[in-house]
């Protein structure tokens, strides 16, 4: 394995893009990443595209080849990867491996999704393709439902209150106001959050991320390309992926995802760092309670302390454990296949020191992307270079 660097990034805004094809979104983000790098697109050796629900919601597959065609790439291997909401993170990891192993010197990871044209029941159904339909899916369990189950158990075990968990929503919605790519930043009061309509008890409206359209892309290169690139390079210190149970019956505890714990363990070991060394985190807050569980699974805080960390401002941009300065999925949005790459995009801006909601002195960034019932997880660690 050889060192891998981010040479360029691109992203559309996350939100509503009516009338814009998913291919257009993906090509816009990827073309921006290539142009930013200043490198020749004819030297790109592989493309990995993360997408989850273009099949059921758009009736369109082979997106990897369609996007490569639109970008004018050579006759390289173009592969769509799918791991539910972790599809983007998995695409990133494959591009990382393509460069790290020497298969090619430049690899492009793209994530794209288009969801807002469909109604809620159709979106819920499409996302529910990530349930195991021989077990939990039969009960009518949904993803809000999975986190509703987790919330109830978490509050029973640790005594976290509705208002404690609302602190996560306030923070992420507030962060979203500072991010021009975010779909729904907002300045919400604890009262507004606690009085919003119930979606899946105890989850209320603002506890849930929106459905979104959007795309993000990252161009990865080997060290020998660094002299040619325009932006300050960011090194990929680690890219780890792990699986967890596809069924609730297989999770010994609903307040933790073993895939996150395993991927984090692998990533920290690869990078040779601990959670203490991380400056800023973009993690998979598909629901408010998810941020708390994820942060604890990543070892960023003790078990049961996640809500208190948010309430005390420790996970704010100025805190000692900044989480989701972008607004996260809750405010930035969740175009599922693009989310993992959007997290990399945000983290690279942080490490370049040019993020619109900058964590001061950010040196090491971690991203966490979780799919399905915790069936797939990627954890990536990036470091600023002094070049």
């Amino acid at each position: 394995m050889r060192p891998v660097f981010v040479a360029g990034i691109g992203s559309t805004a996350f939100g509503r893009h009516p009338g814009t094809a998913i291919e257009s979104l993906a090509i816009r983000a990827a073309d921006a990443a290539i142009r930013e790098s200043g490198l020749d697109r004819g030297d790109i050796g592989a493309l990995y595209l993360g997408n989850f629900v273009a099949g059921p919601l758009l009736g369109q597959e082979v997106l990897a080849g369609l996007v490569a065609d639109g970008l004018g790439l050579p006759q390289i291997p173009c592969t769509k990867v799918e791991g539910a909401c972790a599809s983007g993170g998995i695409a990133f990891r494959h591009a990382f491996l393509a460069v790290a192993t020497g298969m090619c010197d430049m690899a492009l990871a793209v994530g794209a999704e288009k969801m807002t044209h469909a109604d809620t029941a159709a979106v819920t159904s499409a996302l529910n393709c990530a349930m195991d339909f021989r077990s939990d899916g039969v009960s009518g369990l949904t993803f809000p439902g999975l986190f509703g189950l987790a919330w109830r158990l978490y509050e029973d075990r640790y005594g976290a209150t509705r208002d404690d968990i609302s602190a996560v929503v306030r923070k992420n919605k507030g962060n979203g106001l500072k991010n021009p790519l975010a779909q729904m930043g907002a300045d919400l009061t604890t009262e507004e959050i606690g009085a919003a309509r119930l979606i899946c008890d105890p989850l209320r409206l603002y506890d849930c991320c929106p459905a979104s359209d959007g795309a993000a892309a990252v161009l990865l290169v080997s060290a020998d390309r660094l002299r040619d690139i325009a932006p300050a390079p960011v090194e990929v210190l680690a890219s780890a992926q792990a699986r967890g149970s596809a069924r609730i019956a297989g999770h010994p505890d609903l307040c933790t995802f073993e895939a996150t714990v395993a991927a984090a363990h692998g990533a920290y070991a690869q990078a040779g760092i601990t959670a203490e060394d991380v400056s800023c985190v973009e993690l998979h807050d598909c629901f408010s309670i998810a941020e708390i569980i994820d942060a604890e699974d990543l070892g960023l805080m003790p078990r049961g302390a996640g809500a208190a960390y948010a309430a005390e401002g420790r996970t704010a941009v100025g805190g000692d454990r900044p989480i989701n300065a972008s607004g996260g999925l809750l405010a930035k949005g969740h175009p599922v296949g693009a989310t993992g790459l959007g997290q990399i995009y945000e983290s690279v801006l942080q490490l370049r020191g040019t993020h619109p909601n900058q964590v001061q002195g950010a040196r090491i960034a971690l991203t966490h992307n979780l799919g399905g019932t915790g069936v797939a997880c990627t954890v990536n660690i990036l470091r600023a270079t002094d070049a």
Partner: protein
Amino acid sequence: MTLPFSNPPDVEILRCAACGQLDPGPRELCPTCFSPRMEQVAVAGRGVLVSWTLVRRPPSRFQADGPYAVAVVDLDCGVRLTGRLAEVPNDEAGAPALGARMRLSGGTAGMALFAPEPEDL
């Protein structure tokens, strides 16, 4: 309807003929010893409520059922099942507490319905 003094219906799960491991199924290979000899076995429909949630916005295929309460129950035999509460709670106070004793009260293929044990009502 559950009768106070009757035994609840059994639950059909899987048992590995090679090592005895139980599993909610369906599963092709034993998760412990990887034997393909997973056989149907009936176990008592009694257990403990792990958690529940009220699905107010069902996906298309369950539209007609909504709202419904999904429940996770740990059966006394050690197997965890995802099913539903037989009665949808009107409010938090009307729901069984976490850790409450539950019993199977019916259901259809693959989906168990659970109700609180009568003594816990």
